[in-house]
C-alpha cells in the first residue's frame, strides 16, 4: 500500500508538471479578462483580521467585502470617516472589479466627509476646515482614479470623475478629459459627449476645439439641440467671432 502511495505521489507530480503550462496560461487569460485582480497582501490582512483574510483567500472575497461594506455603511451613519475610509480601502482591495464600491467610496469621501470637514464645529479655523475639505476631495479623486485603473473599460467611474472635477475642483480641463474618456467607451451615458463639449468650452485655450465639437453635435439633429448646448454654442460663436454667415441658428437666449 505504501508503495502504491509513493507511486500515486509520483504520478501526481507528473500530472502537476504536465498541467503547469496550461494552468499558467489559463491564469494569464483569466487576468487578461480582469479576473483575480484582488490584492491580498499583508496590509489587507492587518485591516480585515486573520479570519477575514483566510476567508478571502479561500475564495470568499465577495462575502468578506460585503460584510466590510455594511460596516462602512454603519460607520457612515455614525459619521466615523476614518473607519469609512479604512473599510472602503479593504472593500476595494478585495473587490477591485466592483465599480459600485469605488463609486461609493469616492462619494463618501468627496461629498459626505468633505462637507462634514468644512462644517466641523470642533475646528474654529476656517482655513484648516477648507484644507481638510480639499483633502477629502483628493481622497475621492484617488478612489476614482484607482477604480478606473482597475476598470478601464467601464464608463461609470469616468463619469463620476468628470462630475467631481466639475463640481468640486472646478477644473474644467480635467473634467473634459474624463467625460471624453467616458464618451468613447461602450455603454456610456448619452450625455457624456455633450458634457465633454460643455467642459471643453470652459477650458482655456480649447474654445475652438469645443466649438467644433458643439457644432458637430448640433448638426446631429434636434435631439442634441438641448438648451445648454445651444447656450454654449451661442457663447462660443460670439467669443470666437465666427462670421454671421457661418453661424448656426440659435434661438434667442441668454449666454451662460
Amino acid at each position, binding site marked *: 500500500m505504501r508503495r502504491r502511495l509513493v507511486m*500515486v505521489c509520483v504520478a501526481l507530480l507528473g500530472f502537476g508538471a504536465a498541467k503547469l503550462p496550461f494552468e499558467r496560461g*489559463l491564469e494569464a487569460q483569466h487576468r487578461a479578462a480582469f479576473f483575480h485582480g484582488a490584492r491580498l497582501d499583508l496590509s489587507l490582512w492587518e485591516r480585515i483580521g486573520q479570519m477575514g483574510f483566510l476567508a478571502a483567500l479561500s475564495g470568499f472575497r465577495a462575502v468578506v467585502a460585503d460584510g466590510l461594506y455594511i460596516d462602512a455603511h454603519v460607520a457612515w451613519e455614525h459619521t466615523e470617516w476614518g473607519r469609512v475610509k479604512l473599510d472602503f480601502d479593504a472593500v476595494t482591495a478585495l473587490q477591485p472589479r466592483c465599480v459600485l464600491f469605488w463609486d461609493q467610496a469616492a462619494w463618501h469621501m468627496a461629498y459626505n466627509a468633505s462637507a462634514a470637514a468644512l462644517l466641523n464645529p470642533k475646528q474654529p479655523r476656517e482655513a484648516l476646515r477648507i484644507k481638510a475639505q480639499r483633502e477629502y476631495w483628493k481622497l475621492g479623486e484617488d478612489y476614482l482614479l484607482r477604480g478606473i485603473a482597475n476598470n478601464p473599460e467601464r464608463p461609470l467611474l469616468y463619469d463620476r470623475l468628470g462630475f467631481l472635477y466639475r463640481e468640486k475642483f472646478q477644473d474644467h480641463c480635467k473634467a473634459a478629459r474624463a467625460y471624453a474618456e467616458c464618451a468613447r467607451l461602450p455603454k456610456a451615458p448619452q450625455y457624456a459627449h455633450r458634457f465633454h463639449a460643455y467642459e471643453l468650452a470652459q477650458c482655456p485655450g480649447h474654445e475652438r476645439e469645443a466649438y467644433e465639437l458643439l457644432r458637430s453635435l448640433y448638426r446631429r439633429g434636434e435631439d442634441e439641440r438641448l438648451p445648454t448646448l445651444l447656450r454654449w454654442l451661442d457663447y462660443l460663436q460670439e467669443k470666437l467671432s465666427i462670421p454671421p454667415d457661418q453661424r448656426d441658428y440659435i434661438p434667442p437666449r441668454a449666454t451662460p
Partner: protein
Amino acid sequence: MTATLPATRHQFFSLARVGAIASNTLLELVRLKVFYFLLIFALLLIGSSAFFAKLSFQEQFQMLKNFALGAMSIFTWLLAVLATAMMLPKDIEDRTLYTILAKPVPRFEYLLGKLLGVLALLFVALSFMCVMFVIVLYAREQSGIADAVRENPPAQVAAAIEQVKAATFTTSLIPCIVVIYLKAALCAALTLLLSTFATSSIFTIMVAVVVYLIGHVQPIAREYWLASASVGAPTKIFLALISLVFPDLTAFDLVDDILVGNIIAFGLFMKTVALGVTYIAVYFLAGYFMFSAKEL
C-alpha cells in the same frame, strides 16, 4: 430433467451496476438528512435579504447575489468533503462494502458509483439552493419594481424598471453556478482519493480542508517558484512540490468577479471546465489505483 440457467456473460464494465451503486449512495446520503443544511441556507438567504433592505437596490441585489452564491459555494464544498469522507469508512463499518465486492462488481465500478452518487447529491443540493435563490431574488425584484413605480415620475418608470431587471437576473449567473459545482466536484474527487488510504474520516476531512486552503495559495507558490531566482534550493523544492502536487483552486474562483460584471468568454469558460474535469478524472484514477490494492 435438469434445468440449466441461461449463460450470461459477465461484462467487464457495466453502467447499470455503476448506476445502481450511485443511486444507492445518493439514497444513503439523503437518509443521513444532509439536506437539513438547506434550511440554514434558506434562513441565511431570507435573513440577509431583509437585512439589506436599507441599502439601494443595486447594493441589495449585488449583496444578495454575493451572499447567496458564497453560501452555495461553502455548503456544496462542505457537503462534498463531509459526505465523501464518511462514505468508505461507513461502508466498511456497515460491511456493505464486502457484500458488494463479494459479487462480481469490480472495484473500479464501486468507486465510480460512489463518486457519481456524491456528484448527484451535490447536483440535487445545488439545484435546491438555486431554486431558493431564484425565489428570493424574484421577490426582491418585484419589491424593487414596486418601489421604482412608486418613486419615479411616469415618464421614467419604464427605464427604472429596466434598471431593476438588469440588476437581478442575468445570464452570467449560469457560469457562476457551474463553476461552484465543478469546484465542489473536484473537492469530492480529491476527498475520495484521500479516503482510499486514510485510516479515519477525521484524517480525511482534516487533510481535505488543508488541501483546499493550500489550493488557494498554490498559484502564489507557483509564481514564486518559477519567477524568483534568489531563494535557496530547499525553498525552491518546497514551492515546486506545492505547485505540482496541489490543485490550483483559484482557477475556479471566478464567481466574485462575474457577479460584479466581468464577462467570461465561452472559450475561456470551457478551458476552466476542462481543467476541472481533468482534475476530477486524475484524482479518481489515482483513488482507484489506491483502492484496487487496499486490503479489506
